[in-house]
Every structure is written in C-alpha cells, then in structure tokens.
C-alpha cells in the first residue's frame, strides 16, 4: 500500500519537495546578500554625516532596500506555502480517483476502503510535512539573519517555528476531506483556501491570545512590551471606575494640551504629572516573548488534531460512499 500510494503521487511530491528546496535556496541567497550589505554599510560608516551621501553608500543602501523587498516576498511565500502544499497534495488525493473512477479499481481489491484511505493519507501527509520540517530549521536561522527577531508578533509568529508544519497538515487534511465530499479537485482547492483562511484567522484572533493568561505591565508612560501587544488601557491606582478614569484622562488632556497649546516642549511632562496626580497609569496587556515555543507547540497541536479529525471525517465519507 505504501508503494502504491507513493507511485500515484510521486510526481506531485517531487514538485512539492523541489518547490520547498528552491525557496530555501532563495532564502539563503537573499539572507547572505542582506548581511553583506548591512556589514558594508556599517564598516564604511555610511550612517555618519560625512559618508552619508557618498556614491558607495548610496549603492549599498539601494541594494539593501532591494534585499528587504525580497525578504518581504519570501515572508509572503512562507505564508502561502502551507496552503499551497496542502491543496496540491490534499485536494486530488481522493477527488482525482473518483474523477477518473480509479476508486472502482482500488475498492475492489483485497484492502478495505478505510485501510486504503488511511495509508494513502499517511504517505501523502508525510510527504507534505517532511519538507516543511526542513524549512522550519532553515527559517529559525533565517529570521535572525534578516532581522526578524520579534517572533511573538503575529506577523512573524505565523511563518517562523513549527506552526507551519501544523498549518500544512491541516490544509492537506482539509483538501482531502473536501475532495472526498465535493468529488471535484478544483472546488476542493478553492474550498481549502477559504476554510484554511477562516480557521487560521479564528485560531489567531480567537484562541491564541488565550493560550496562557496574558501579562499586564503598568506604567506612567506608555510602555513598550517585550512580546505580543494585545491591548492597552488606563487603570486607577485608587480603584476608580472605568468611566471616572476616562473622565480624568480627558480632563488632563484638556487641561494641558487645549489650554497650554500642543507644541510647547514641557507639555508631555505636565500631562504625565497630571495623570500621576490623579493616580492614573497605563496598563498594557501582552504575551511575553518567552512563551514563543510554548505557543508554537500549542498552535501546532491544535492544527494537528484538527487534521486528524478531518481524516476521521474523510474515512466516514469514503465508507458511506454511494457510487
């Protein structure tokens, strides 16, 4: 069964592995170019006033800007890749058999439909996930090399780390299930794109902020937090109600900025003093950077379990097939 499953999807698996390998190669080239440009700009003191306008520095700066835009393209590709791989290998897994009626051959051999499906699924899932595992290793190095260290923010969290393996498995399983349900490869691909997008959005917005109780930092000045910024607010140290706090905040703004004018350099100091006088502080809710790998693990597990549930649903669909 392993051989049969591999033989059927051999071509598409090779396309997939080559696509991931090509992306890793491109990532390396861009990262080295970016590091080289950054290094040259630093060693030639291009930041200083004297060298700022020199021809060499201009060329390097343009080159670095070019690297940055390519890095943005790679990040975009890393976002799309899980969906692409899942749809490419998942959607046709059952749908193409039904389309070509080869299921009639497969289902009349000495193997039950369940066994047939689970083997096919496992082989293809391994083929889709293994290259992604290699990619994760590459990205862990790459994100540092190209200066994307702030990995707790969703913009970076979503393509660094092991979550992309979970995303890929999920979109694959969704593609298989929709292919079996709709019996049409193209519709399954479209459905996978929509379903994958919605599920990803729901987990990121609805679940991820609550993987662990978020931390709150309080300060008289607006704080920058080491991690994923979730929300900001104002709190009263004397336990005043939220409405009262807002009133006081407006009072300070009015007192300082409206009356005194917005441009005077001392105004921020007076504004802060006003807040302190009324015992009001900023409160920022966030998920700290230290939870990065724990969150990666939780989110990967969510998508992995969802993929297995989808496999269960597909088994059920295929068992009850009324050809």
């Amino acid at each position, binding site marked *: *069964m392993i*051989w*049969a499953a591999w*033989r*059927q999807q051999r*071509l598409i698996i090779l396309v997939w592995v080559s696509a991931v390998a090509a992306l890793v190669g491109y990532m390396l080239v861009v990262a080295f170019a970016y590091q080289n440009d950054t290094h040259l700009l630093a060693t030639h003191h291009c930041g200083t006033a004297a060298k700022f306008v020199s021809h060499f520095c201009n060329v390097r700066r343009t080159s670095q800007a070019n690297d940055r835009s390519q890095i943005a393209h790679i990040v975009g590709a890393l976002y799309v890749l899980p969906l692409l791989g899942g749809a490419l290998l998942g959607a046709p897994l059952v749908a193409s058999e039904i389309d*070509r*009626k*080869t*299921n*009639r*051959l*497969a*289902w*009349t*051999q*000495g*193997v*039950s*439909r*369940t*066994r*047939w499906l689970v083997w096919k699924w496992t082989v293809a899932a391994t083929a889709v996930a293994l290259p992604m595992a290699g990619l994760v290793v590459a990205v862990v190095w790459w994100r540092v090399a190209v200066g994307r260290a702030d990995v707790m923010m969703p913009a970076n969290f979503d393509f660094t780390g092991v979550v992309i393996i979970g995303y890929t498995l999920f979109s694959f399983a969704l593609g298989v299930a929709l292919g079996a349900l709709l019996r049409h490869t193209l519709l399954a691909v479209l459905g996978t794109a929509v379903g994958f997008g919605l599920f990803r959005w729901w987990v990121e917005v609805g679940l991820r902020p609550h993987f662990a109780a978020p931390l709150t930092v309080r300060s008289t000045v607006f704080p920058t937090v080491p991690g994923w910024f979730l929300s900001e607010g104002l709190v009263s140290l004397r336990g005043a109600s939220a409405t009262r706090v807002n009133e006081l905040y407006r009072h300070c703004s009015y007192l300082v900025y409206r009356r005194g004018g917005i441009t005077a350099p001392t105004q921020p100091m007076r504004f802060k003093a006003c807040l302190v006088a009324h015992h009001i502080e900023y409160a920022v809710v966030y998920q700290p950077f230290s939870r990065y790998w724990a969150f990666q693990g939780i989110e990967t597990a969510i998508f992995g379990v969802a993929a297995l549930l989808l496999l269960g649903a597909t088994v059920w669909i*295929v*068992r*009850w*097939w*009324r*050809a």
Partner: protein
Amino acid sequence: MLALEARDLGRRYPRKWGLRNCSFAIPEGKVAGLVGPNGAGKSTLLRLAAGISRATTGEVRVLGEAVRPNCPGGYPKVGYLDQERPLYKHFRVEELLKYGQHLNRQWYPDVARRWLDELHVPVAARFRSLSIGQQAQVALALCLGKQPELLLLDEPAASLDPLARRKLFGALMDTVADRGTTVFLSSHILSELEPVCDYLVILSNSEVQLSGETERILANHRILVGPREQAAPEGGTVIATANAGRQTTLVVRDLAHRSVGWQEIEPTLEEIVLAYLEVGQ
C-alpha cells in the same frame, strides 16, 4: 453454495431507479450471462455485487456473504472488471500488476503475467499508450491475478477484436473448468454469450425479466404460430405477441399441453431474449 444471490435488490438514483426488485441466484461454477439493452441496469447490478455501490433496497450475497461497501479485508475472492477499465493511465503495465500484488494478499503474478504475454501486451509500456483492446486485457489481467472465485465482468468483450474475443472466452472456459470459478458477465450482444453461458439473467427497464439455466429456459419456452383470430392457448404465459398479416406469432412460457390449432416451434435463445426485452420496453 450460491456464488451470487440477489434478494429484492434495488438501487435508486436521484431521478430514477437504476435497478429494482432484482432477485436471482447463480450457483457456483456457472458461466452466467447478463443480457439487456443499454441503460437496463447491468452495470449498476455488477457494481452492487462488487461492493462499489450501496443498495437502496434488498441485498446481494456473494459466495454466501452479504456484500457491503468497506468490507474489512476488501474483496479478495471477487475479480471485478469495470466497463470503463479505469486504471491509472500514467502507470506502466508492470506497475499496474505490482499495484495488484500490493493490494491483494492473494496474488498470482504468473497468472496475470502469462495472460499479457500470450496476448503480446508490452509490460514496460505505459497504460495510456496501449490500444483500447490491450487496455482491456490489462484490466482483465488484474482481475485474473487474484485467482478469484467469482469474476464479475462488465462488457468484457467490448473493444476486443474477434480473435481476442475468442481467446478471452476460451480462457474463461478454462478457468471455470480448472478452478470452478463462477463467471458473471454482461453484454448487450446475446450471440456473444450464447455459446459460453449456461445461465442467463435478462435485465430490461431496470428489472429482471427472467433468470435461469439456459437449458431450462430453452425447454420452458415455445413459439406458437397460428391464425390471428384464434384465442390464445390455455395453460401458459404469453410473453410476446407479434402479428403479421393474418398470422400471429406467440412466445409462450410453461406451456402445459399441446394446443390445438397452433404450430409449435422450438425457439432459439435469441428469440426468447428478444421477446422479454420487448416486454420490458
């Protein structure tokens, strides 16, 4: 034991019945023909027996066991040849045979291989590059490689040249003789089946019109020719009536005694089948 048994079997499609009130029983070791016009439900019946389709009513039993889709362990004792020969087009022939070997615990590589070698089908060629006839032979080889106890063949002779056709039927006769295999094969050309079948199921308009051993069918039916005005003979079921001029021709089943005034003729199988198919229309 019965090789294949249908009890009140029915399959409803969204708009119409593909098969209805279908009951018959084929004993082991028979070569049974399934005859009927296009769209009569022959393929539906075979797919139900192969476990691909799910019955809406009734059940079908193969080798004593009720057929259901997703049978644990699959269908190792049944060889099924689909009408459309749906095989993996990009596989080489030898890879298709390997596929059969991998998906069946019981597999006889020599049997399948010998079949293709005798017909000079190139095993290194890709399936899609073969002629239609050769593709049919590969699909058949995949059925035979299992050495099944029951062969369900949907239009096995279609797209074969007369020589290959004769060879096919010859080989089927051999397996029946050697291994006691039961064969259930469909065709809309009766002349193809007549020389090989010793059992017949006539399907028309989604219903079984008649089933039984060919010898008994021949013995039970008579053609009566007589004047048009004459009343139908008693003690028999008139299947079909044809009027030509002042003469009437009847096909009658289970004629109890000789009827006065009618000329009795022993019909051919084809005449009987055509009579039933006309009724079904």
